[in-house]
């Protein structure tokens, strides 16, 4: 789960990482009132959950109130990579002497947290990694030991910034661990006359840890209606796509395979739900509810090759769904654990099943074109 800059800055502040005090406005805010609370010159920063905001014109500066109002209106009319600007963070313009890059993320090969630093801040770090990899400094962090002073002194020396990074990096690392973050990024970290200052703040929280991260799970709940339904029904995955076949599978890998085959047969999936490991009859019933609730779904394709999932329970859920809901064309592919029982239960209720994935996909694609 990505956080908005202003949300991440609130967390930074809590952990003692220096940030500016800003205010957040929406289209409904009284701009005049808000602008009378800030000291000019100011910076207006679009709050969107995507990168490349600066390049897309999502950050503007203003010297006066009049200029600010005009630019606020421009920003609210803007879309950044399809994300409409709905909030703007207003801060005092900082007096920057030098900018560097700092982040903590996970090194997936070495299985450890890693601190990444670069003497050039405010830039696209992936671009630097490609063009000038030697500029990027990394410290692999032992998860049981944490960051050490000597490593940070080495980094500070290589960055040649004459500032001790120990304090800020320690705080970033504490925040990273305590908040179950997958990424904490300060790009840029500015060196100003008053010391270090996080000009931007980016945080990605581990979705799998939201159960023990109350603050973030509350934020997430407010954001997305469908995802809310997905959470509420305990589904492992729900992905929106743009076709007309509603796909439910009992594994992610087989789900992706099925999407590929649907494509190969000339069909298109409307959405895709994967049940995950721990399932029961309600899991599939709820997945059917969520997937079929999308209006362009013409046919449901349910593909089961259960190891952990029990086909007797899957059959029970499918039957229960059709007792409670209007009929919709459905193709069921079923094999795996307790398949004999599952198939028999479905047959008794008049549902055909097949073992063969290709046959099932072909049938679903044909139905989607006929309906």
């Amino acid at each position, binding site marked *: 789960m990505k956080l908005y800059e202003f949300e991440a800055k609130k967390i930074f502040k809590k952990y003692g990482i220096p940030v500016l005090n800003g205010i957040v406005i929406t289209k409904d805010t009284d701009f005049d009132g808000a602008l009378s609370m800030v000291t000019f010159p100011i910076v207006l920063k679009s709050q969107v959950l995507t990168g490349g905001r600066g390049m897309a014109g999502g950050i503007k500066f203003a010297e006066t109130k009049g200029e600010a109002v005009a630019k606020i209106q421009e920003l609210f009319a803007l879309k950044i990579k399809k994300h409409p600007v709905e909030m703007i963070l207003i801060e005092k313009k900082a007096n920057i002497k030098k900018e560097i890059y700092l982040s903590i993320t996970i090194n997936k090969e070495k299985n450890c947290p890693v601190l990444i630093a670069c003497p050039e801040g405010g830039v696209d770090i992936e671009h630097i990694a490609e063009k000038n990899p030697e500029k990027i400094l990394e410290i692999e962090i032992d998860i049981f030991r944490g960051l050490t002073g000597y490593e940070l002194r080495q980094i500070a020396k290589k960055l040649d910034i004459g500032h001790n990074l120990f304090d800020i990096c320690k705080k970033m690392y504490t925040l990273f661990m305590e908040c179950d973050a997958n990424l904490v990024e300060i790009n840029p970290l500015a060196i100003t006359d008053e010391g270090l200052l996080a000009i931007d703040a980016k945080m990605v929280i581990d979705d799998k840890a939201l159960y023990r991260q109350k603050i973030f799970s509350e934020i997430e709940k407010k954001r997305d209606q469908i995802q809310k339904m997905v959470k509420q029904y305990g589904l492992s995955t729900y992905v929106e796509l743009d076709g007309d076949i509603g796909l439910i599978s009992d594994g992610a890998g*087989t789900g*992706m395979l099925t999407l*590929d085959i649907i494509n190969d047969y000339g069909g298109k999936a409307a959405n895709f739900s994967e049940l995950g490991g721990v399932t029961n009859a309600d899991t599939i019933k709820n997945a059917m509810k969520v997937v079929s609730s999308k209006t362009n779904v013409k046919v449901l394709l349910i593909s089961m090759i259960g*190891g952990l999932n029990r086909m007797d329970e899957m059959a029970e859920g499918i039957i229960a769904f059709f007792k409670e809901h209007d009929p919709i064309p459905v193709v069921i592919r079923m094999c795996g654990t307790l398949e004999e029982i599952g198939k028999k239960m479905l047959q008794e209720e008049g549902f055909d099943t097949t073992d063969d994935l290709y046959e099932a996909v072909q049938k679903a694609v044909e139905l989607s074109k006929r309906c």
Partner: protein
Amino acid sequence: MAVLIDKKTKVLVQGITGRTGSFQTKIMKDYGTKIVAGVTPGKGGQEIYGIPIYNFVEEAVAEHDINAAISFVPAKFALDAAYETIDAGIQFMVVTAEGIPNVDILKMIQYGCAKNTKILGPDTPGIISPEKCKMGVHPNRFFKEGNVGVISKSGALSYEVCKSMVEKSVGQSTVVGIGGGPLWGTSQIDVLKLFQEDKETKAIVLLGEIGGTMEEKTAQYIKEHIDKPVVSLIVGRSAPQGKRMGHAGAIIEGKVGTAESKIEILRKCGSIVAKTPEDIPKLLMDVL
């Protein structure tokens, strides 16, 4: 021969009395896996399917000869369960739970590394050496003894492929589910190494998916170190940018992790790339 587990493997089940743990234990035992003990806190002294239950792993290890463990402990408690197994000195552990926070996974893997316990998973269906031993949740009928080693991130995808293989009478030496990612205690390369050394394994099937850069690194390793034929399949060709396709690791971010890039590099590095599971048995028969 098989890799990681065989007929001699003596297994402990953590979370043996839970809904999934008990159900799958019965199937594993019926399959022939030597399950010698189970652990569920508070249920020590009881028995399930004739298997003695202990409160702690340490107690089970004191009473039995155990060299592998499979954990059905839910995500929230999975790290503690792993610590317990690692501290008891068991050197191979399968962690099935999905949804374990990344920080917990890192701790589990690093602690295992330091204390010499190999972790398979998390979020894995486990491992099966057909007709010898199964530590996992695989539906039995899609597997038969043979000489193809299978490596998969996804459980169900490995069932799909092994089903196609068995329908054409191509069996497996061992099928290893490494897990859905984005963090892995055992990587594709770790398993490739084992298959390369295993005399029984004549060919290898590598089942990958979009997201991350593991397949790219694996492809390079195949080129440099593997002389057995490798047939690979990458799923997620039709996946859109930026959407997480079920597995935590399966997401295309920018140019990183697309099926095209993985397929291309695997091909360049000498792997045969299949388009669908159905092609795999035929491609295997050509090389075997």
